[in-house]
């Protein structure tokens, strides 16, 4: 590492002369802990960083706090890379760029392959006969084995705009309530409620880096469940404050969206640890109809389907919505 000029080091270490009460401006424990947990707004972070760049004491506090609060395997994840770049051959720029190019090619190939697989499944779903005629019925036995990804036919029927069944859908009638949603897997294109054909969930349960995300499902009673072991066992998840029946679910990595009766919609960005209720509104009108389908193609881009066949879309992770 290049030596830093001593003059620069002296100036870095000096407290700003103009701040006579510099010590009184030390950051509060709230701001420092929120910084360590990455929970500050960009403006707040910028202001705090301005102070931290000049205050050795507050930086010391951050170093004490950070190692405990950081990702549990953060250091372990970084260590192999550190080794690689210390080796003169492996650390050369040519090798690094070649490695990046190779990874991009492999990632592109996998993405294309997955897209083809999903297109094949979608075509198969579109060609299923007599689906539109089947009445919607709740499944009597909730499935816990999520390896069989067959979606109830009624779900596909409900989503066809011209379906006579969907036109007659009465959210209030218990027999017409959508059956259990499929286990949500982290699929790049479709959420569970939209799948009309068998899907092998296991191959789609990991992202390109191999990291495994939780699986989610709703029981026939509209209760939320999560599996951390690829569907072998399921744990009930209670959303604080929710008393509504849940009908639909979608997941993207650690982001989970759950919707249900009377426009109820919840979002978790940390795989179900904390939940926040979302109230989509557009032009003064708030979503009040049953949410029967949710689709998120990415963390930002999502779509809700209601019992009245309304579609609500978001392009910013649920901060704002447009009704169609």
């Amino acid at each position, binding site marked *: *590492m*290049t*030596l*830093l*000029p*001593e*003059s*620069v*080091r*002296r*100036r*870095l*270490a000096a407290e700003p002369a103009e701040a006579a009460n510099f010590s009184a401006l030390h950051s509060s*424990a*709230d*701001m*420092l*802990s*929120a*910084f*360590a*947990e*990455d*929970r*500050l707004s960009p403006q*707040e972070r910028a202001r705090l*960083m*301005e102070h*931290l*760049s*000049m205050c*050795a*004491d507050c*930086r*010391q*506090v*951050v*170093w*004490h*706090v*950070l*190692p*405990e*609060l*950081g*990702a549990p395997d*953060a*250091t372990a994840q*970084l*260590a192999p*890379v*550190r080794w690689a*770049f210390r080796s003169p051959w492996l650390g050369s720029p040519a090798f690094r760029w070649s490695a990046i190019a190779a990874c991009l090619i492999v990632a592109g190939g996998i993405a294309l392959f997955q897209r083809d697989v999903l297109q094949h499944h979608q075509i198969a779903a579109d060609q299923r006969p007599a689906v539109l005629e089947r009445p919607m019925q709740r499944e009597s036995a909730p499935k816990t084995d999520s390896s069989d990804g067959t979606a109830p036919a009624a779900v596909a029927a409900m989503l066809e705009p011209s379906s006579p069944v969907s036109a007659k859908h009465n959210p209030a009638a218990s027999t017409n309530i959508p059956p259990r949603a499929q286990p949500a897997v982290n699929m790049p294109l479709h959420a569970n409620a939209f799948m009309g054909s068998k899907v092998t969930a296991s191959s789609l349960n990991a992202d390109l880096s191999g990291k495994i995300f939780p699986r989610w499902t709703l029981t026939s009673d509209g209760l939320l469940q999560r599996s951390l072991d690829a569907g072998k066992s399921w744990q009930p998840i209670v959303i*604080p*404050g929710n008393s509504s029946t849940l009908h639909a679910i979608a997941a993207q990595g650690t982001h989970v969206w759950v919707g249900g009766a009377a426009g109820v919609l919840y979002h978790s960005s940390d795989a179900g640890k904390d939940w*926040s*209720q979302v*109230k989509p509104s557009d032009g003064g009108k708030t979503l009040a109809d049953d949410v029967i389908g949710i689709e998120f193609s990415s963390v930002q881009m999502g779509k809700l389907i209601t019992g009245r066949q309304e579609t609500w879309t978001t392009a910013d992770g649920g*901060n*704002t919505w447009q009704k169609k």
Partner: protein
Amino acid sequence: MKNSSETRLETAAPVHGWSAGLSRELYIKSGAEALGLGLEAFAGIILGIVAKFLPAESNANSVEKFCCELRLQDLALAHACAAGHERAWEAFMVRYRSKLYDMASAIARESSAARELADGLYAELYGTSLKNEKRISKLSSYNGRGSLDGWLRTVLAQEFVNRYRKQRRLVSLEEETEAGQQFASPQPESQISADSRMEIATDEALAGLSPDDRFLLAAYYLDQRTLAEIALALQLHESTISRKLHKLTKTLRKQVLAGLKKSGMSRRQAEEALQVDVRDLKVDLRKRLTQEGDAAAFHKQKVQEPAG
């Protein structure tokens, strides 16, 4: 039908976008009722936090989003404890009794100092000081922006840093007195004379840096932190930190050189000035860093009770 307390909250709330519905929703999510904290008290706490952190002209969506991102359950626990509710204290003790000592041990690295640190904080959390005959608990200053775990750890770390800073001043004074340096004649002009051209060039080079870049340099060169630790703080990959440091240091040297040449030095003179600077670094730096807070010494030094 709204009850009178909800109506009171809505009409009295100065925060744009606040509603009794939101208040109740947050109250239910927080579980404050089970800890003995009432709706009105809890809503007052949330309103205070919103007024502190959000601009007055924030819209309803921003207020709601901000409130939903608060650590509501931790907030309810902390403020219910601050208000003296027994159920809350029971829950707090179950959750944090031994954890607080573990946190203090991780910070102080020595059992007696850790115990002293943790006991001191417990007293402040419980509220040993009185104001208008009312007990003041440090927990009432928790705002729910980060987790309660993180906040407690930060408060412990701040107390530890404060004690170390006081101790450092006392130790330095004693050392200087023993060495007779207080009464020594002024030192002859040091090899690194305060060349104003160097300082001006350095100040100009540093002024162009972003706070993140300054933090990066301070963390690595002053605090002696590893690339992994800095990467964790800045939420970047370690290799990115390594590249940024390398680029920053090179750029700074170039800018200081350019500044020195602009002030009238020739290229050779500027490079010599910088080289001399770096050479003397080895002599001065050790002393300077020890006084300004060597990271290793920081952990290893015992925090002793100040005399008297």
